[in-house]
Protein backbone atom coordinates (compact mmCIF):
# COMPACT_ATOMS: atom_id res chain seq x y z
CA UNK A 1 0.00 0.00 0.00
CA UNK A 2 1.42 3.39 -0.96
CA UNK A 3 1.96 6.08 1.62
CA UNK A 4 0.35 9.37 0.83
CA UNK A 5 -0.30 12.44 2.95
CA UNK A 6 2.28 14.96 4.05
CA UNK A 7 2.83 15.41 7.74
CA UNK A 8 -0.28 16.72 9.44
CA UNK A 9 -1.73 16.96 12.89
CA UNK A 10 -2.41 13.62 14.53
CA UNK A 11 -6.17 13.89 14.35
CA UNK A 12 -6.29 14.96 10.70
CA UNK A 13 -3.82 12.28 9.77
CA UNK A 14 -5.85 9.59 11.52
CA UNK A 15 -9.00 10.41 9.66
CA UNK A 16 -7.33 10.79 6.29
CA UNK A 17 -5.49 7.53 6.67
CA UNK A 18 -8.55 5.72 7.83
CA UNK A 19 -10.57 7.03 4.87
CA UNK A 20 -7.88 6.13 2.43
CA UNK A 21 -7.51 2.69 3.93
CA UNK A 22 -11.16 1.97 3.29
CA UNK A 23 -10.93 3.38 -0.20
CA UNK A 24 -8.07 1.08 -1.03
CA UNK A 25 -9.67 -1.91 0.58
CA UNK A 26 -12.78 -1.77 -1.55
CA UNK A 27 -11.09 -3.89 -4.19
CA UNK A 28 -10.65 -6.87 -1.93
CA UNK A 29 -13.11 -9.69 -1.76
CA UNK A 30 -15.66 -9.38 0.96
CA UNK A 31 -14.14 -11.88 3.38
CA UNK A 32 -10.69 -10.40 3.33
CA UNK A 33 -12.13 -6.92 3.47
CA UNK A 34 -13.97 -7.58 6.68
CA UNK A 35 -11.02 -9.31 8.27
CA UNK A 36 -8.65 -6.53 7.34
CA UNK A 37 -10.79 -3.54 7.92
CA UNK A 38 -11.71 -4.27 11.49
CA UNK A 39 -8.20 -4.88 12.64
CA UNK A 40 -6.70 -2.14 10.54
CA UNK A 41 -9.23 0.48 11.49
CA UNK A 42 -8.80 -0.36 15.11
CA UNK A 43 -5.08 -0.08 14.82
CA UNK A 44 -5.14 3.19 12.98
CA UNK A 45 -7.56 4.95 15.25
CA UNK A 46 -6.44 3.39 18.49
CA UNK A 47 -2.84 4.31 18.07
CA UNK A 48 -2.69 6.97 15.42
CA UNK A 49 0.08 4.98 13.78
CA UNK A 50 0.25 4.58 10.06
CA UNK A 51 1.58 1.09 10.42
CA UNK A 52 0.95 -1.36 13.24
CA UNK A 53 3.80 -3.44 12.04
CA UNK A 54 3.65 -6.61 13.93
CA UNK A 55 0.00 -7.23 13.15
CA UNK A 56 0.36 -6.15 9.58
CA UNK A 57 -3.32 -6.12 8.72
CA UNK A 58 -2.39 -4.15 5.62
CA UNK A 59 -0.17 -6.96 4.55
CA UNK A 60 -3.00 -9.40 4.66
CA UNK A 61 -4.05 -7.55 1.56
CA UNK A 62 -0.64 -8.26 0.04
CA UNK A 63 -0.02 -11.87 0.65
CA UNK A 64 -3.52 -13.15 0.43
CA UNK A 65 -4.34 -12.90 -3.24
CA UNK A 66 -1.80 -11.88 -5.86
CA UNK A 67 1.99 -12.24 -5.60
CA UNK A 68 2.36 -9.58 -8.27
CA UNK A 69 1.24 -7.12 -5.68
CA UNK A 70 4.67 -6.93 -4.15
CA UNK A 71 6.54 -9.11 -1.71
CA UNK A 72 8.50 -9.17 1.49
CA UNK A 73 11.87 -10.46 2.46
CA UNK A 74 13.30 -10.54 5.95
CA UNK A 75 16.86 -10.13 7.13
CA UNK A 76 19.07 -11.21 9.99
CA UNK A 77 22.55 -9.75 10.07
CA UNK A 78 25.88 -9.38 11.85
CA UNK A 79 25.62 -12.26 14.30
CA UNK A 80 29.36 -12.30 15.18
CA UNK A 81 29.24 -15.76 16.66
CA UNK A 82 31.83 -17.24 18.90
CA UNK A 83 31.70 -20.91 19.71
CA UNK A 84 28.88 -21.36 22.20
CA UNK A 85 30.97 -22.31 25.22
CA UNK A 86 33.04 -19.16 24.79
CA UNK A 87 30.24 -16.63 24.39
CA UNK A 88 26.65 -17.70 24.64
CA UNK A 89 25.10 -14.26 24.40
CA UNK A 90 25.68 -13.79 20.67
CA UNK A 91 24.40 -17.29 19.96
CA UNK A 92 21.29 -16.66 22.01
CA UNK A 93 20.58 -13.45 20.20
CA UNK A 94 20.89 -15.03 16.78
CA UNK A 95 18.50 -17.74 17.92
CA UNK A 96 16.06 -15.04 18.98
CA UNK A 97 16.31 -13.39 15.56
CA UNK A 98 15.63 -16.71 13.85
CA UNK A 99 12.64 -17.18 16.13
CA UNK A 100 11.34 -13.73 15.17
CA UNK A 101 11.69 -14.42 11.48
CA UNK A 102 10.05 -17.82 11.80
CA UNK A 103 7.14 -16.15 13.57
CA UNK A 104 6.37 -13.76 10.73
CA UNK A 105 2.94 -14.26 9.29
CA UNK A 106 2.77 -14.46 6.36
CA UNK A 107 6.28 -15.78 5.86
CA UNK A 108 8.72 -13.71 3.78
CA UNK A 109 9.76 -14.91 0.35
CA UNK A 110 13.28 -15.44 1.57
CA UNK A 111 15.56 -14.38 4.42
CA UNK A 112 18.83 -12.59 3.78
CA UNK A 113 21.73 -13.17 6.11
CA UNK A 114 23.64 -9.89 6.00
CA UNK A 115 27.22 -10.96 6.74
CA UNK A 116 29.53 -11.41 9.75
CA UNK A 117 28.08 -14.75 10.75
CA UNK A 118 31.29 -15.59 12.59
CA UNK A 119 33.29 -13.24 14.76
CA UNK A 120 36.80 -14.49 14.02
CA UNK A 121 36.18 -16.44 10.83
CA UNK A 122 36.73 -19.78 12.55
CA UNK A 123 35.41 -22.94 11.00
CA UNK A 124 33.47 -23.90 14.10
CA UNK A 125 31.90 -20.43 14.33
CA UNK A 126 30.74 -20.60 10.72
CA UNK A 127 29.51 -24.15 11.16
CA UNK A 128 27.56 -23.14 14.25
CA UNK A 129 25.99 -20.28 12.34
CA UNK A 130 25.12 -22.50 9.41
CA UNK A 131 23.51 -24.99 11.76
CA UNK A 132 21.38 -22.31 13.42
CA UNK A 133 20.31 -20.81 10.12
CA UNK A 134 19.14 -24.22 8.93
CA UNK A 135 16.19 -23.67 11.29
CA UNK A 136 14.93 -20.68 9.33
CA UNK A 137 11.69 -21.77 7.74
CA UNK A 138 11.94 -19.59 4.65
CA UNK A 139 14.79 -20.02 2.12
CA UNK A 140 17.99 -18.28 3.18
CA UNK A 141 20.31 -16.22 0.98
CA UNK A 142 23.79 -15.71 2.39
CA UNK A 143 26.05 -12.71 2.18
CA UNK A 144 29.61 -12.59 3.43
CA UNK A 145 31.18 -10.07 5.83
CA UNK A 146 34.77 -9.33 6.73
CA UNK A 147 34.57 -11.30 9.97
CA UNK A 148 33.75 -14.38 7.92
CA UNK A 149 36.51 -13.93 5.41
CA UNK A 150 39.88 -12.94 6.69
CA UNK A 151 40.94 -16.00 8.60
CA UNK A 152 41.02 -18.32 5.62
CA UNK A 153 40.11 -15.90 2.82
CA UNK A 154 36.70 -17.44 2.42
CA UNK A 155 37.62 -21.09 2.17
CA UNK A 156 35.17 -22.33 4.81
CA UNK A 157 32.53 -19.87 3.65
CA UNK A 158 32.63 -21.21 0.11
CA UNK A 159 32.48 -24.76 1.42
CA UNK A 160 29.36 -24.01 3.49
CA UNK A 161 27.55 -21.45 1.40
CA UNK A 162 29.03 -21.39 -2.10
CA UNK A 163 30.33 -18.40 -4.01
CA UNK A 164 29.95 -15.09 -2.16
CA UNK A 165 29.13 -13.13 -5.31
CA UNK A 166 26.02 -13.99 -7.27
CA UNK A 167 22.80 -12.67 -8.68
CA UNK A 168 19.28 -13.91 -9.15
CA UNK A 169 15.87 -12.74 -10.23
CA UNK A 170 12.77 -12.85 -8.10
CA UNK A 171 9.31 -11.62 -8.99
CA UNK A 172 10.56 -9.13 -11.50
CA UNK A 173 13.39 -7.73 -9.36
CA UNK A 174 17.05 -8.38 -10.13
CA UNK A 175 19.03 -9.16 -6.96
CA UNK A 176 22.81 -8.89 -6.72
CA UNK A 177 24.86 -10.13 -3.78
CA UNK A 178 28.38 -8.74 -3.51
CA UNK A 179 31.47 -9.45 -1.46
CA UNK A 180 32.16 -5.81 -0.75
CA UNK A 181 34.76 -6.28 1.96
CA UNK A 182 37.76 -6.91 -0.28
CA UNK A 183 40.83 -5.34 1.32
CA UNK A 184 44.17 -4.66 -0.27
CA UNK A 185 46.83 -6.98 1.17
CA UNK A 186 48.22 -5.41 4.32
CA UNK A 187 49.27 -8.63 5.98
CA UNK A 188 52.03 -10.14 3.85
CA UNK A 189 54.53 -7.31 4.28
CA UNK A 190 53.95 -7.42 8.00
CA UNK A 191 54.40 -11.18 8.11
CA UNK A 192 51.08 -11.68 9.83
CA UNK A 193 49.61 -15.08 10.55
CA UNK A 194 46.03 -15.72 9.45
CA UNK A 195 44.92 -15.22 13.05
CA UNK A 196 46.66 -11.89 13.26
CA UNK A 197 45.17 -10.83 9.97
CA UNK A 198 41.70 -11.78 11.21
CA UNK A 199 42.22 -9.97 14.52
CA UNK A 200 43.29 -6.85 12.70
CA UNK A 201 40.26 -6.85 10.47
CA UNK A 202 38.00 -7.70 13.42
CA UNK A 203 38.97 -4.46 15.14
CA UNK A 204 36.63 -1.84 13.74
CA UNK A 205 38.96 0.95 14.74
CA UNK A 206 42.15 -0.89 13.80
CA UNK A 207 43.87 1.41 11.33
CA UNK A 208 46.29 -1.14 9.92
CA UNK A 209 43.69 -2.82 7.73
CA UNK A 210 42.83 -1.45 4.31
CA UNK A 211 39.55 0.14 3.32
CA UNK A 212 36.82 -2.08 1.95
CA UNK A 213 36.37 -2.30 -1.77
CA UNK A 214 34.28 -4.18 -4.22
CA UNK A 215 37.41 -4.45 -6.38
CA UNK A 216 38.17 -4.46 -10.07
CA UNK A 217 37.24 -8.08 -10.61
CA UNK A 218 33.84 -7.85 -9.01
CA UNK A 219 33.06 -4.51 -10.63
CA UNK A 220 33.75 -6.09 -13.97
CA UNK A 221 31.52 -9.00 -13.04
CA UNK A 222 28.79 -6.59 -11.95
CA UNK A 223 29.01 -4.64 -15.18
CA UNK A 224 28.67 -7.85 -17.16
CA UNK A 225 25.86 -9.17 -14.99
CA UNK A 226 23.86 -5.98 -15.34
CA UNK A 227 24.51 -5.62 -19.05
CA UNK A 228 21.56 -7.85 -19.89
CA UNK A 229 19.20 -6.37 -17.33
CA UNK A 230 16.79 -3.73 -18.67
CA UNK A 231 17.25 -0.32 -17.09
CA UNK A 232 13.66 -0.32 -15.94
CA UNK A 233 14.06 -3.49 -13.92
CA UNK A 234 14.25 -2.77 -10.20
CA UNK A 235 17.64 -3.60 -8.71
CA UNK A 236 18.29 -4.62 -5.14
CA UNK A 237 21.95 -4.94 -4.19
CA UNK A 238 22.99 -6.75 -1.03
CA UNK A 239 26.36 -5.65 0.21
CA UNK A 240 28.10 -5.87 3.56
CA UNK A 241 29.92 -2.55 3.33
CA UNK A 242 27.66 0.45 2.63
CA UNK A 243 28.76 1.11 -1.00
CA UNK A 244 29.21 4.75 -0.10
CA UNK A 245 31.58 6.73 2.09
CA UNK A 246 30.34 7.37 5.61
CA UNK A 247 33.24 7.13 8.07
CA UNK A 248 36.64 6.03 6.92
CA UNK A 249 38.19 5.18 10.30
CA UNK A 250 35.63 2.50 11.02
CA UNK A 251 35.45 1.15 7.47
CA UNK A 252 31.89 2.41 7.24
CA UNK A 253 33.21 2.94 3.78
CA UNK A 254 33.67 1.47 0.35
CA UNK A 255 36.72 2.90 -1.38
CA UNK A 256 35.50 2.35 -4.93
CA UNK A 257 31.98 3.44 -4.06
CA UNK A 258 31.90 6.06 -6.80
CA UNK A 259 32.75 3.50 -9.43
CA UNK A 260 30.19 1.03 -8.13
CA UNK A 261 27.52 3.71 -7.99
CA UNK A 262 28.36 4.65 -11.56
CA UNK A 263 27.58 1.10 -12.64
CA UNK A 264 24.25 1.17 -10.77
CA UNK A 265 23.26 4.70 -11.73
CA UNK A 266 21.67 3.98 -15.13
CA UNK A 267 18.97 1.90 -13.46
CA UNK A 268 15.78 3.69 -12.48
CA UNK A 269 15.17 1.97 -9.20
CA UNK A 270 18.14 0.86 -7.16
CA UNK A 271 18.21 -0.07 -3.52
CA UNK A 272 21.31 -1.10 -1.63
CA UNK A 273 20.79 -3.04 1.60
CA UNK A 274 23.98 -3.29 3.62
CA UNK A 275 25.24 -4.65 6.90
CA UNK A 276 28.36 -3.84 8.88
CA UNK A 277 27.13 -0.64 10.53
CA UNK A 278 24.86 -2.17 13.22
CA UNK A 279 22.57 0.85 13.30
CA UNK A 280 19.66 2.54 11.60
CA UNK A 281 21.17 4.17 8.57
CA UNK A 282 19.58 5.76 5.54
CA UNK A 283 21.11 7.47 2.54
CA UNK A 284 20.25 8.46 -0.97
CA UNK A 285 22.78 9.35 -3.62
CA UNK A 286 21.25 10.32 -6.92
CA UNK A 287 18.63 7.69 -7.55
CA UNK A 288 20.23 5.01 -5.36
CA UNK A 289 18.68 4.29 -1.97
CA UNK A 290 20.85 2.86 0.81
CA UNK A 291 19.54 1.10 3.89
CA UNK A 292 21.51 -0.40 6.76
CA UNK A 293 20.59 -3.54 8.67
CA UNK A 294 20.49 -4.11 12.40
CA UNK A 295 22.90 -6.49 14.08
CA UNK A 296 21.92 -9.24 16.48
CA UNK A 297 25.18 -9.02 18.44
CA UNK A 298 25.85 -5.42 19.51
CA UNK A 299 25.01 -1.90 18.33
CA UNK A 300 27.55 0.58 17.01
CA UNK A 301 27.44 4.26 17.95
CA UNK A 302 26.92 6.79 15.19
CA UNK A 303 30.22 7.98 13.76
CA UNK A 304 31.52 11.41 14.78
CA UNK A 305 31.13 12.67 11.22
CA UNK A 306 29.77 11.72 7.86
CA UNK A 307 26.28 10.68 8.95
CA UNK A 308 24.00 10.89 5.91
CA UNK A 309 21.39 13.61 6.50
CA UNK A 310 18.47 11.36 5.56
CA UNK A 311 19.21 9.08 8.47
CA UNK A 312 16.68 9.06 11.27
CA UNK A 313 18.84 7.85 14.12
CA UNK A 314 17.68 5.13 16.43
CA UNK A 315 17.34 6.20 20.04
CA UNK A 316 20.72 5.60 21.60
CA UNK A 317 20.97 2.09 22.98
CA UNK A 318 20.73 1.56 26.72
CA UNK A 319 23.78 -0.39 27.90
CA UNK A 320 21.73 -1.95 30.68
CA UNK A 321 19.60 -3.80 28.15
CA UNK A 322 21.82 -6.14 26.13
CA UNK A 323 19.19 -6.41 23.42
CA UNK A 324 18.71 -2.68 22.92
CA UNK A 325 19.58 -1.24 19.53
CA UNK A 326 19.52 -4.74 18.06
CA UNK A 327 17.09 -6.82 16.11
CA UNK A 328 16.24 -7.84 12.59
CA UNK A 329 13.84 -6.59 9.98
CA UNK A 330 12.29 -6.68 6.59
CA UNK A 331 12.53 -5.24 3.14
CA UNK A 332 9.09 -4.76 1.67
CA UNK A 333 9.21 -4.53 -2.07
CA UNK A 334 6.43 -2.66 -3.82
CA UNK A 335 5.09 -3.71 -7.22
CA UNK A 336 7.09 -0.87 -8.76
CA UNK A 337 10.28 -2.22 -7.21
CA UNK A 338 10.89 0.49 -4.63
CA UNK A 339 11.19 -0.67 -1.08
CA UNK A 340 10.09 0.11 2.44
CA UNK A 341 12.73 -0.83 4.95
CA UNK A 342 11.51 -2.06 8.31
CA UNK A 343 13.71 -2.15 11.37
CA UNK A 344 12.36 -4.54 13.95
CA UNK A 345 14.15 -3.32 17.06
CA UNK A 346 13.90 -5.57 20.08
CA UNK A 347 12.03 -4.09 23.06
CA UNK A 348 11.13 -1.06 20.93
CA UNK A 349 8.49 -0.21 18.40
CA UNK A 350 9.44 -1.02 14.82
CA UNK A 351 10.56 1.78 12.52
CA UNK A 352 9.77 1.93 8.85
CA UNK A 353 11.67 3.96 6.30
CA UNK A 354 9.27 4.03 3.37
CA UNK A 355 9.97 4.49 -0.30
CA UNK A 356 8.12 7.80 -0.32
CA UNK A 357 10.38 9.06 2.45
CA UNK A 358 13.32 8.23 0.22
CA UNK A 359 11.99 9.63 -3.01
CA UNK A 360 10.72 12.82 -1.39
CA UNK A 361 14.17 13.48 0.02
CA UNK A 362 12.97 12.96 3.56
CA UNK A 363 9.96 15.23 3.44
CA UNK A 364 7.06 12.79 3.34
CA UNK A 365 6.21 9.94 5.65
CA UNK A 366 8.85 10.97 8.11
CA UNK A 367 9.20 8.40 10.86
CA UNK A 368 9.21 9.56 14.46
CA UNK A 369 12.48 11.26 15.31
CA UNK A 370 14.44 9.81 18.19
CA UNK A 371 13.92 11.54 21.50
CA UNK A 372 17.20 10.33 22.95
CA UNK A 373 19.92 11.16 20.45
CA UNK A 374 23.49 10.07 20.66
CA UNK A 375 25.78 12.88 21.75
Amino acid at each position, binding site marked *: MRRRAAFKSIETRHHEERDELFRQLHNLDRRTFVKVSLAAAAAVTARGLAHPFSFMPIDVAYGATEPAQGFRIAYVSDAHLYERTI*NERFVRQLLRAVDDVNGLDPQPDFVLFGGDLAQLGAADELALGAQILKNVKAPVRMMVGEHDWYLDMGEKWRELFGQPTYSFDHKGVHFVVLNSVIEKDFWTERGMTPEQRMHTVA*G*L*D*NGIQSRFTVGDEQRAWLQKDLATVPKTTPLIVFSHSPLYKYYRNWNFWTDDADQVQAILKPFNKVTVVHGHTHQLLTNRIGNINFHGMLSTAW*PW*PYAPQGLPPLTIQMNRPDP*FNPADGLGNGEVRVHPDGLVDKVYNLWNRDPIQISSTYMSSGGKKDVPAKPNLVSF
Partner: protein
Amino acid sequence: MIRPTTVAVTSALVAAVVIAVLAGQHRAGAGENVEVKLCDNHTTTTVPGDQPVTRENGEKIAKALMDQWLRANPDSKAWMEEERSKHSIVNPADNSGLVGRGQGATYGQISGDDVATWREETLKLVVDGSTVFHSGDRLGSTIAVSCDMCHPDAANTHPETYPKFQPQLGRVALLRDMINWCIEHPVRGKTLSADDPNMRALEAYITAQRKGAALDYGRR
Protein backbone atom coordinates in the same frame (compact mmCIF):
# COMPACT_ATOMS: atom_id res chain seq x y z
CA MET B 1 58.49 -1.28 29.33
CA ILE B 2 57.48 -3.79 26.70
CA ARG B 3 53.89 -4.93 26.96
CA PRO B 4 53.36 -8.68 27.38
CA THR B 5 51.04 -8.83 24.43
CA THR B 6 53.59 -7.24 22.19
CA VAL B 7 56.13 -9.78 23.29
CA ALA B 8 53.65 -12.55 22.66
CA VAL B 9 52.77 -11.30 19.24
CA THR B 10 56.30 -10.65 18.22
CA SER B 11 57.42 -13.97 19.65
CA ALA B 12 54.77 -15.77 17.69
CA LEU B 13 55.90 -13.99 14.59
CA VAL B 14 59.51 -14.76 15.22
CA ALA B 15 58.63 -18.35 16.08
CA ALA B 16 56.90 -18.78 12.78
CA VAL B 17 59.88 -17.45 10.93
CA VAL B 18 62.24 -19.59 12.98
CA ILE B 19 60.29 -22.72 12.19
CA ALA B 20 60.19 -21.84 8.52
CA VAL B 21 63.90 -21.22 8.43
CA LEU B 22 64.83 -24.34 10.32
CA ALA B 23 62.46 -26.50 8.38
CA GLY B 24 63.79 -25.23 5.11
CA GLN B 25 67.39 -25.86 6.03
CA HIS B 26 69.24 -29.02 5.42
CA ARG B 27 68.82 -31.09 8.54
CA ALA B 28 72.04 -30.99 10.55
CA GLY B 29 73.32 -34.12 12.12
CA ALA B 30 73.87 -34.68 15.82
CA GLY B 31 76.55 -32.49 17.31
CA GLU B 32 76.11 -29.72 14.73
CA ASN B 33 74.70 -26.48 16.08
CA VAL B 34 72.54 -24.02 14.21
CA GLU B 35 72.75 -20.29 14.66
CA VAL B 36 69.42 -18.48 14.58
CA LYS B 37 69.44 -14.74 14.01
CA LEU B 38 66.72 -12.22 14.81
CA CYS B 39 65.39 -9.98 12.09
CA ASP B 40 67.52 -7.11 13.36
CA ASN B 41 70.42 -9.10 11.88
CA HIS B 42 72.32 -8.74 15.08
CA THR B 43 70.80 -10.68 17.96
CA THR B 44 71.66 -14.39 17.68
CA THR B 45 71.29 -17.61 19.58
CA THR B 46 72.50 -21.15 18.98
CA VAL B 47 70.37 -24.29 18.93
CA PRO B 48 71.36 -27.97 18.73
CA GLY B 49 70.94 -29.15 15.18
CA ASP B 50 68.97 -32.26 15.99
CA GLN B 51 66.31 -30.47 18.04
CA PRO B 52 62.92 -31.30 16.53
CA VAL B 53 61.35 -28.52 14.51
CA THR B 54 58.11 -27.99 16.42
CA ARG B 55 56.04 -24.93 17.14
CA GLU B 56 56.86 -25.23 20.83
CA ASN B 57 60.59 -25.25 20.26
CA GLY B 58 60.25 -22.46 17.76
CA GLU B 59 58.52 -20.35 20.37
CA LYS B 60 61.22 -21.10 22.93
CA ILE B 61 63.89 -19.96 20.55
CA ALA B 62 61.93 -16.89 19.67
CA LYS B 63 61.48 -16.01 23.33
CA ALA B 64 65.20 -16.40 23.95
CA LEU B 65 65.94 -14.03 21.10
CA MET B 66 63.36 -11.50 22.28
CA ASP B 67 64.63 -11.59 25.85
CA GLN B 68 68.10 -10.91 24.58
CA TRP B 69 66.87 -8.03 22.48
CA LEU B 70 64.90 -6.59 25.38
CA ARG B 71 67.93 -6.69 27.65
CA ALA B 72 69.81 -4.74 25.03
CA ASN B 73 66.93 -2.26 24.49
CA PRO B 74 65.26 -1.67 27.88
CA ASP B 75 63.51 1.59 27.04
CA SER B 76 62.04 0.59 23.75
CA LYS B 77 58.91 2.42 22.84
CA ALA B 78 58.17 -0.03 20.08
CA TRP B 79 55.06 -1.20 21.86
CA MET B 80 53.70 2.32 21.85
CA GLU B 81 54.37 2.75 18.18
CA GLU B 82 52.75 -0.57 17.47
CA GLU B 83 49.63 0.37 19.41
CA ARG B 84 49.43 3.77 17.78
CA SER B 85 49.78 2.25 14.34
CA LYS B 86 46.63 0.28 15.01
CA HIS B 87 44.51 2.72 16.97
CA SER B 88 44.29 6.48 16.75
CA ILE B 89 45.08 8.15 20.05
CA VAL B 90 44.46 11.78 20.86
CA ASN B 91 47.58 13.62 21.96
CA PRO B 92 47.74 15.42 25.30
CA ALA B 93 47.75 19.19 25.54
CA ASP B 94 50.79 20.90 24.15
CA ASN B 95 52.78 22.47 26.97
CA SER B 96 55.73 23.61 24.91
CA GLY B 97 54.61 27.20 25.40
CA LEU B 98 55.67 26.87 29.03
CA VAL B 99 59.34 26.38 28.30
CA GLY B 100 61.36 29.09 29.97
CA ARG B 101 58.61 30.06 32.38
CA GLY B 102 58.30 29.66 36.11
CA GLN B 103 60.28 30.71 39.12
CA GLY B 104 61.04 29.63 42.63
CA ALA B 105 61.68 26.15 43.99
CA THR B 106 58.62 24.40 42.61
CA TYR B 107 58.56 25.53 39.03
CA GLY B 108 62.13 26.66 38.59
CA GLN B 109 62.62 27.17 34.92
CA ILE B 110 60.52 24.81 32.83
CA SER B 111 62.71 23.16 30.24
CA GLY B 112 62.14 21.27 27.03
CA ASP B 113 63.09 18.12 28.91
CA ASP B 114 60.31 18.70 31.42
CA VAL B 115 57.73 19.18 28.70
CA ALA B 116 58.90 16.06 26.91
CA THR B 117 58.82 14.01 30.11
CA TRP B 118 55.32 15.08 30.97
CA ARG B 119 54.15 14.22 27.50
CA GLU B 120 55.89 10.87 27.27
CA GLU B 121 54.77 9.64 30.66
CA THR B 122 51.20 10.75 30.05
CA LEU B 123 51.15 9.07 26.67
CA LYS B 124 52.51 5.85 28.11
CA LEU B 125 49.51 5.48 30.38
CA VAL B 126 47.06 6.49 27.69
CA VAL B 127 48.53 4.18 25.07
CA ASP B 128 48.62 1.35 27.58
CA GLY B 129 44.97 2.12 28.22
CA SER B 130 44.28 1.74 24.54
CA THR B 131 45.91 -1.67 24.65
CA VAL B 132 43.77 -2.79 27.56
CA PHE B 133 40.65 -1.29 25.99
CA HIS B 134 41.15 -3.34 22.86
CA SER B 135 42.11 -6.60 24.56
CA GLY B 136 39.56 -9.07 25.95
CA ASP B 137 42.42 -10.94 27.58
CA ARG B 138 43.77 -8.00 29.49
CA LEU B 139 40.26 -7.09 30.61
CA GLY B 140 39.85 -10.59 31.95
CA SER B 141 36.89 -11.30 29.69
CA THR B 142 35.58 -14.84 29.85
CA ILE B 143 33.51 -14.35 26.71
CA ALA B 144 36.11 -12.81 24.39
CA VAL B 145 34.58 -9.34 24.43
CA SER B 146 36.63 -6.15 24.56
CA CYS B 147 35.51 -2.55 25.08
CA ASP B 148 36.17 -1.48 21.51
CA MET B 149 33.52 -3.85 20.23
CA CYS B 150 30.80 -1.44 21.36
CA HIS B 151 33.02 1.62 21.68
CA PRO B 152 35.35 1.96 18.68
CA ASP B 153 37.93 4.67 19.42
CA ALA B 154 36.18 4.96 22.82
CA ALA B 155 33.16 6.50 21.10
CA ASN B 156 30.00 6.84 23.15
CA THR B 157 31.75 6.56 26.51
CA HIS B 158 31.07 10.16 27.61
CA PRO B 159 33.64 10.53 30.36
CA GLU B 160 32.69 14.21 30.61
CA THR B 161 29.26 13.34 32.01
CA TYR B 162 30.45 11.71 35.23
CA PRO B 163 29.67 11.82 38.13
CA LYS B 164 26.05 10.98 37.53
CA PHE B 165 23.47 8.91 39.31
CA GLN B 166 22.95 5.56 37.67
CA PRO B 167 20.09 3.55 39.22
CA GLN B 168 21.35 0.29 37.77
CA LEU B 169 24.65 0.79 39.53
CA GLY B 170 22.82 1.63 42.73
CA ARG B 171 24.78 4.81 43.32
CA VAL B 172 26.30 7.92 41.84
CA ALA B 173 28.73 6.64 39.25
CA LEU B 174 32.20 7.84 38.49
CA LEU B 175 33.75 6.79 35.21
CA ARG B 176 35.49 3.90 36.94
CA ASP B 177 32.20 2.59 38.29
CA MET B 178 30.77 2.42 34.81
CA ILE B 179 33.94 0.80 33.52
CA ASN B 180 33.60 -1.83 36.21
CA TRP B 181 29.96 -2.41 35.38
CA CYS B 182 30.92 -2.97 31.76
CA ILE B 183 33.71 -5.29 32.79
CA GLU B 184 31.34 -7.29 34.95
CA HIS B 185 28.44 -7.55 32.51
CA PRO B 186 29.05 -7.08 28.78
CA VAL B 187 32.69 -8.14 29.11
CA ARG B 188 32.09 -10.70 31.87
CA GLY B 189 35.46 -10.27 33.49
CA LYS B 190 36.46 -9.58 37.07
CA THR B 191 35.96 -6.06 38.31
CA LEU B 192 39.04 -3.96 38.93
CA SER B 193 39.92 -2.04 42.06
CA ALA B 194 40.19 1.73 41.69
CA ASP B 195 43.99 1.75 41.77
CA ASP B 196 44.49 -1.29 39.58
CA PRO B 197 46.97 -0.26 36.87
CA ASN B 198 44.59 -1.47 34.18
CA MET B 199 41.76 0.64 35.59
CA ARG B 200 43.94 3.72 35.73
CA ALA B 201 45.08 3.12 32.17
CA LEU B 202 41.52 2.64 30.94
CA GLU B 203 40.34 5.84 32.58
CA ALA B 204 43.28 7.68 31.09
CA TYR B 205 42.60 6.43 27.56
CA ILE B 206 38.84 7.00 27.66
CA THR B 207 39.28 10.52 28.97
CA ALA B 208 42.01 11.26 26.46
CA GLN B 209 39.86 10.28 23.51
CA ARG B 210 37.24 12.80 24.53
CA LYS B 211 39.65 15.71 24.79
CA GLY B 212 37.90 18.99 24.16
CA ALA B 213 34.39 17.91 25.21
CA ALA B 214 33.08 20.27 27.87
CA LEU B 215 32.63 18.84 31.34
CA ASP B 216 28.93 18.28 31.88
CA TYR B 217 28.53 16.17 34.98
CA GLY B 218 25.13 14.64 35.58
CA ARG B 219 24.24 14.64 31.88
CA ARG B 220 22.24 11.60 30.81
